[in-house]
């Protein structure tokens, strides 16, 4: 097959998973790994029960509670919010009834579903991976096709291990050269969203390529793929390479020995062929990317740290002008203010975007020998029990605890700086006009 038309990474994974193509072009796509959590599954299990259906591949399904777990000690003492507790208890009942492997709350492996999939070696190159959460795109960093689905689709995958899907278009974003000092995967992806907008990737699967992407470690690649969703794309992915293979070799549940060698053979065939067709292409020069700051209430409102708060009056489009004005007012800013002059109230390192051991190391490296300013509240939340253990083994918690509060592992989006502080928690921990980095 490969002797014919050159194919992209996406094409190869897609082709390898089409069970059947229906007359209208819809594919019945096989799903290799289905990650599940307490928020988007209760109604799906209910549906199975009502129809007398079983879970087709419990071995290809993994359940973990993550969204409703607070960072305090309530995982031991009992979840306070009755609705959150009910969701967790319901999942615990459902995994028993349907025989789905489950990582319990107090297990070291428990954590944010998008942290633990790769960390345990369950998310692998060439796989199709789904989860009832939009940030499932994270797993694309492994060289997999990974995307979020709704609850009916969760039920469909549980019952049939397949999804009805129309093929996506191919888009490639290449980031060439070396990143400047102080820049990371997050700066790359924010710079990309700043260029393409929050709907720039609609209908596409984005493959990230170029030296700057190759140079990222797995956590950095996961951050990039995670936020692909904020650019409107269906999924983001990075072709597997030696960095990927070395990462998998160290995971507890990845294939071992002969199985690893055999898997490696197939993984090495996955990168896009030379001359493969992309429907859309974007090239960025890595050295032109400065550290990025989102100053408003959506990820499109992003500027380099050297930027200034825009003046809504300069915007020609009426709807956009009104939106800019709302953001400026909400954030308590003045047009023309330099971003470097803004006071920051909270610094948060965590969520499914940034809570891997590499992120905690980066935070500790900055914290070492320094102290947090009096007006700043600093929070570092490891994304899983294993990340926490590793951080403690490396002594990172001691460095961080000297100033910021080093917290317990948590759920992903309850405090995601790109989700919560933008909508939901105004007047909460941040307070009005609070600014969180």
């Amino acid at each position, binding site marked *: 097959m490969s002797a014919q038309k050159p194919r992209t990474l996406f094409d190869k994974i897609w082709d390898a998973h089409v069970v059947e193509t229906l007359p209208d072009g819809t594919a019945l796509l096989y799903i290799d790994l289905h990650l599940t959590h307490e928020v988007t599954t209760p109604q799906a299990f209910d549906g199975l029960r009502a129809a007398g259906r079983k879970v087709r591949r419990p071995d290809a399904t993994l359940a973990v509670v993550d969204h409703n777990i607070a960072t305090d000690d309530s995982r031991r003492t009992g979840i306070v919010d009755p609705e959150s507790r009910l969701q967790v208890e319901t999942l615990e009942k459902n995994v028993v009834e349907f025989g789905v492997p489950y990582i319990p709350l107090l297990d070291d492996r428990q954590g944010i579903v998008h942290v633990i999939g790769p960390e345990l070696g369950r998310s692998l190159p060439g796989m199709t991976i789904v989860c009832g959460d939009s940030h499932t795109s994270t797993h694309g960093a492994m060289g997999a096709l990974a995307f979020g689905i709704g609850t009916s689709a969760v039920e469909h995958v549980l019952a049939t291990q397949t999804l009805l899907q129309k093929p996506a278009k191919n888009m490639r974003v290449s980031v060439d050269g070396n990143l400047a000092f102080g820049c990371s995967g997050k700066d790359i992806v924010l710079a990309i969203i700043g260029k393409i907008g929050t709907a720039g990737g609609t209908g596409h699967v984005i493959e990230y390529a170029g030296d700057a992407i190759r140079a990222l470690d797995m956590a950095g690649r996961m951050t990039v793929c995670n936020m692909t969703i904020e650019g409107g794309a269906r999924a983001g992915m990075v072709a597997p390479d030696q960095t990927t293979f070395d990462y998998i070799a160290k995971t507890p549940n990845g294939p071992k020995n002969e199985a690893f060698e055999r*898997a490696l053979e197939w993984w090495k065939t996955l990168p896009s062929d030379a001359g493969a067709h992309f429907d859309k292409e974007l090239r960025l020069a890595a050295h032109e990317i400065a550290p990025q700051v989102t100053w408003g209430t959506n990820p499109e409102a992003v500027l380099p740290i050297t930027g200034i708060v825009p003046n809504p009056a300069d915007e020609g489009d009426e709807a956009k002008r009104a939106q800019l004005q709302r953001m400026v007012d909400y954030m308590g800013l003045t047009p023309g203010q330099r971003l470097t002059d803004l006071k920051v109230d909270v610094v948060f390192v965590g969520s499914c975007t940034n809570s891997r051991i590499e992120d905690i190391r980066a935070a500790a490296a900055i914290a070492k020998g320094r102290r947090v300013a009096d007006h700043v509240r600093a929070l570092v939340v490891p994304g899983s029990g294993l990340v926490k253990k590793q951080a403690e083994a490396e002594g990172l918690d001691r460095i961080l605890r000297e100033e910021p509060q080093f917290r317990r592992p948590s759920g992903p989006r309850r405090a995601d700086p790109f989700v919560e502080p933008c909508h939901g928690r105004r007047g909460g921990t941040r307070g009005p006009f609070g600014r969180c980095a």
Partner: protein
Amino acid sequence: MQAFTKLTGIAAPLPKANVDTDQIIPARFLKSISRLGFGKNLFANFRFKEDGSENPDFVLNQEPYRKAEVLIAFENFGCGSSREHAPWALLDFGIRCVIAPDFADIFNNNCFKNGVLPVRLPREICEKLMEDAKMGGNARISVDLERQVVVRPNGEEIPFQTDPLRRHLMLNGLDDIGQTMQHAPAIDGFEDRQRAAQPWLYT
């Protein structure tokens, strides 16, 4: 899933574009473990004031629209978060059909999966239907999926299109899973081949 064949009922006018799923059902109400019960919080931010009392200005708080079965809106209905709770909330309230110039993709899919019919009609026709709907209880609108027509109160018939497969599933109240289960032999065959080629994916 309840079959959708033909519906004649009250249509509520909601002359807004870009009605997103967080407006349809705000995030704070998503913690239920059932598909039912979301109707009481449908459009909660429009329907209720901060003190929890009803906002009399919102259409669904007015007679006869409390019993609306059809909703007429403008462009890009159902944009935003992928939450399936949006069609669940509409259905639980009693709305089984939304007519708009176009719909956000995931919302559109989610509607068909739950027996809510999204009908796409050009803006100028939606504007006419909006005027019909404002006539309240004197103006019932019919939506006939069998014949693929919307019938205005004055008897005028407006044809619309739906995907043939989705129409078949809706007319018969079949869900996607039942449909896919008919492909079980092909799925079995796929698994046999994959297990042989990539045994590490199976335990």
